[in-house]
């Protein structure tokens, strides 16, 4: 154990650790995290782990030993003698607000006082902290954090409450049923009263309930109560104290940057470090599997060293790769049959010739995630172990690949998960690129010191791991009544899952993330025939906020408008006629239309476009109000309706819808990584542009009241935005946009 920790291994910790049955009090990640947060150990709860006492825990199945910590439910909540409630969050906070959401679930069932609730991030331990949607994998993605935790975290809170109540009943010699709880306080009609902190030790001796009773919705105090639980991370993110990977400081820590291959598939030939090593502060220049690492005492020295480094690359294999060539190939593929992703139609060939045919080819670019915090990771090899600090969105993958890179067993690797400055999918990758590269640098310097690997913006944007390029070719036949009679749909684009650890989720050669939104679709289109081509490229593909829905929703929802126009019907009515089997989709569509005043005369020069989509089991419809001046698009207002089941934190849901709308609008306007000569042509915000404040429309969010199980909101606000805007542009007399971004059609200021 490194010496820094000794300061915190005080008597109090030892006492509590003994109570917990944990032999080494510094072993849990929380001790070190607490150090890192520089909040000071003394004033904080170490936490009295109250849900399962040592003896009960030892008797529970599946517990491998006390040192690995208690099993559920107490892996999620602790109550301290200082009356603070600590919620241990298994999900990664990258801005979407799930830390607040998970704490809300516990606090509600526990009847906690929100001002006394604290949060911390769980260590990498899939036995305790798996995402229940992902099976035995600990990770955050697919807008599933609250959805999979809804009962688990409530149960954890309810268990803690039941034990506090049982302890009070025993102490006061009154029936448990007569004890009331509210705001961290237990009360009895006799006048007895105790805080949770005062009852915590006694509660820790109680047996946990076998099946804790959960509240009916009518008794919720925080869940679905608007603004009752403000974000737990607001204060630290408004005063500069929130700790990101970039901010981690360890004694003697070095900073590394890597000279990465300039193109996709470029190979290192040789390098000359003579001048780089002359830069003051540069300590090492070393080959690593990723390229050439320049290690220094500070960031600027590392960057200057990299600038002085001479590297020869072999780009002969990569130089031919370019966007224009790829697009030509994809367009050709789109005319050919690929792997079917729908069942063959029962009456194939029997359909009568359509009265009208609508055909379109759509083209989507590579997209970088462009998180505000460029990728980074701190790695420290010491005392036969490895520790990493990063925004580990998929701890299980990062843990596995870090261990492999370090040549250590997984139990000698400790991950410290910190908040990250955005991800949008980037930090959830099955190569764990930022983690592995940091471990490789730490290994290359022989574990001499902790080392922070920092990507520059250019490194990150040029690294690949993009939302893949896609081409869709769609041909739809309408009958004489304007109803859909046939639908042929071809999709061309890299598979995100193929060739990686997620490949087993593919079925019959079809990556579901390539087709989701077309198959399945919310619309009743049994005649839809789909075929897929999944070309393999040296550019690594990755999910990007809402994944396949980023392109499928655009195609389906702009096609719906084209079909409605061809059939002479209102776009809203045309959609509703096909949504008979999806009442929740119809519901959000009608709500958004109603709130936006769909069909009513609006302001002159402003047109409304509408779109609806289901992703991650959440339904979102948006009406975009768009004007055009001098041929340039301006989105003035977006009215959004969302149905995500029980709205656990309404204000977080609104924030996610607002953010999704701005994120998607920026991509629609500007985002494209072009590949030229095998290299990414856009590397920084000057060419890979993001939406700015003056381009942000007014946003109005309406949440459908619902008792359905909660579903995610981090991504589902993205898919409908671009087609809603494109549909309004067509209404204003602009082109039917089939190639993104809008810069390709000269529809935005550049």
């Amino acid at each position, binding site marked *: 154990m490194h010496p820094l920790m000794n300061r915190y291994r005080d008597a109090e910790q030892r006492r509590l650790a003994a109570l917990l049955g944990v032999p080494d009090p510094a072993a849990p990640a929380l001790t070190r995290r607490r150090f890192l947060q520089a909040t000071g150990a003394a004033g904080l709860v170490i936490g009295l782990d109250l849900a399962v006492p040592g003896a009960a825990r030892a008797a529970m199945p599946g517990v491998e030993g006390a040192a690995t910590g208690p099993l559920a439910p107490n892996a999620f909540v602790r109550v301290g003698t200082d009356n603070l409630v600590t919620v241990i969050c298994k999900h990664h906070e990258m801005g979407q607000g799930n830390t607040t959401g998970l704490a809300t679930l516990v606090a509600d069932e526990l009847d906690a006082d929100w001002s006394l609730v604290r949060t911390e991030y769980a260590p990498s331990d899939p036995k305790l902290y798996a995402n229940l949607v992902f099976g035995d994998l600990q990770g955050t993605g697919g807008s599933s954090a609250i959805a999979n935790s809804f009962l688990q975290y409530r149960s954890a809170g309810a268990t803690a409450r039941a034990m506090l109540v049982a302890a009070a009943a025993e102490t006061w010699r009154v029936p448990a049923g007569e004890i009331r709880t509210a705001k961290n306080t237990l009360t009895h009609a006799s006048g007895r009263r105790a805080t949770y902190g005062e009852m915590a030790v006694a509660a820790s001796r109680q047996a946990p309930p076998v099946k804790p009773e959960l509240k009916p919705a009518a008794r919720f105090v925080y869940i679905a109560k608007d603004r009752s639980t403000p974000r737990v991370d*607001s*204060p630290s993110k408004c005063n*500069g104290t929130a700790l990101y990977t970039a901010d981690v400081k360890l004694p003697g820590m070095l900073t590394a940057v890597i000279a990465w291959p300039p193109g996709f598939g470029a190979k290192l030939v040789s390098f000359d470090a003579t001048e780089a090593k002359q830069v003051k*502060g540069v300590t090492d220049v070393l080959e690593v599997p990723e390229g050439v690492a320049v290690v220094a005492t500070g960031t600027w020295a590392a960057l200057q060293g990299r600038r002085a480094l001479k590297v020869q690359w072999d780009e002969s294999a990569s130089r031919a790769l370019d966007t224009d060539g790829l697009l030509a190939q994809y367009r050709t593929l789109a005319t050919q049959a690929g792997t079917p992703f729908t069942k063959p139609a029962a009456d194939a060939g029997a359909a009568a010739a359509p009265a009208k045919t609508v055909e379109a080819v759509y083209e989507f670019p590579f997209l970088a995630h462009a998180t505000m915090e460029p990728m980074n990771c701190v790695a420290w090899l010491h005392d036969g172990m490895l520790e990493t600090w990063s925004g580990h969105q998929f701890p299980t993958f990062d843990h596995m690949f870090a261990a492999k890179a370090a040549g250590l067993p997984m139990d000698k690797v400790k991950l410290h998960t910190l908040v990250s400055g955005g991800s949008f999918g980037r930090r959830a990758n099955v190569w764990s690129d930022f983690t592995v590269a940091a471990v490789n640098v730490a290994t290359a310097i022989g574990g001499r010191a902790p080392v922070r690997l920092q990507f520059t913006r250019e490194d990150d944007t040029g690294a690949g791991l993009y939302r893949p390029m896609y081409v869709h070719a769609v041909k739809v036949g309408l009958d004489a009544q304007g109803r859909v009679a046939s639908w042929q749909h071809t999709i061309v684009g890299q598979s995100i899952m193929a060739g990686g650890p997620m490949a087993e989720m593919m079925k019959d050669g079809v990556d579901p993330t390539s087709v989701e939104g077309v198959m399945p679709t919310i619309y009743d289109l049994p005649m839809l025939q789909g075929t897929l081509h999944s070309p393999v490229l040296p550019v690594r593909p990755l999910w990007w906020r809402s994944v396949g829905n980023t392109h499928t929703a655009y195609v389906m929802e702009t096609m719906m408008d084209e079909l409605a126009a061809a059939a002479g019907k209102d776009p809203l009515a045309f959609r509703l006629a096909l949504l008979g089997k999806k009442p929740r989709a119809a519901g959000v569509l009608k709500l958004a239309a109603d709130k936006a005043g769909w069909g009513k005369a609006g302001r002159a020069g402003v047109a409304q476009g509408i779109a609806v989509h289901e992703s991650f089991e959440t339904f979102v419809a948006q009406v975009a109000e768009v004007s055009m001046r001098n041929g340039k698009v301006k989105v003035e207002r977006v009215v959004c309706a969302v149905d995500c089941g029980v709205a656990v934190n309404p204000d977080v849901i609104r924030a996610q819808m607002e953010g999704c709308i701005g994120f998607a609008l920026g991509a629609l306007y500007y985002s494209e990584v072009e590949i030229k000569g095998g290299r990414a042509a856009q590397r920084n915000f000057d060419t890979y542009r993001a939406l*700015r404040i003056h381009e942000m429309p007014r946003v109005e969010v309406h949440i459908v009241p619902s008792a359905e199980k909660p579903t995610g909101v981090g991504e589902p606000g993205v898919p409908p935005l671009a087609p809603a805007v494109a549909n309004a542009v067509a209404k204003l007399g602009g082109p039917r946009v089939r190639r993104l971004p809008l810069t390709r059609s000269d529809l935005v200021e550049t």
Partner: protein
Amino acid sequence: MSLSLTVNGARRDFDGDPDTPLLWVIRDELGLTGTKYGCGIAQCGACTVHVDGRTLRSCSAPVSAVAGRQITTIEGLGSRAAKAVQKAWVELDVVQCGYCQSGQIMSATALLEQKPKPSDTDIDHAMAGNICRCATYHRIRAAIHAASAQLAG
């Protein structure tokens, strides 16, 4: 030769490369990590600090250029306007990932210190240099107006 800086009211000496961008001096040398690196080319505003009360993208300013000037980082904010901005930011839960928000708050504070009642156009001009990839712009605008109202009240 050593440079003398005034950061958050305290004198700090720096004897490294005078071309080092102020950002890396603040973060790596002075340990003030609230100011963030986002792009290195003054495009995103995550590194925004105040120099003599005006915003500066610290990633693109050599430290030698600000020697002897009053530098304020997020850690050193204390003016009435700054407090109103931070309060409004928390009350409206502006933040999401939060990484850009130090820079946003620095820009918003400088705006309100110069123009206590900014129009939407003033906000556009003052804030357009600060990118938020979470697109919290809707709430940033609302929070600036709320802070302005608080200052007037």
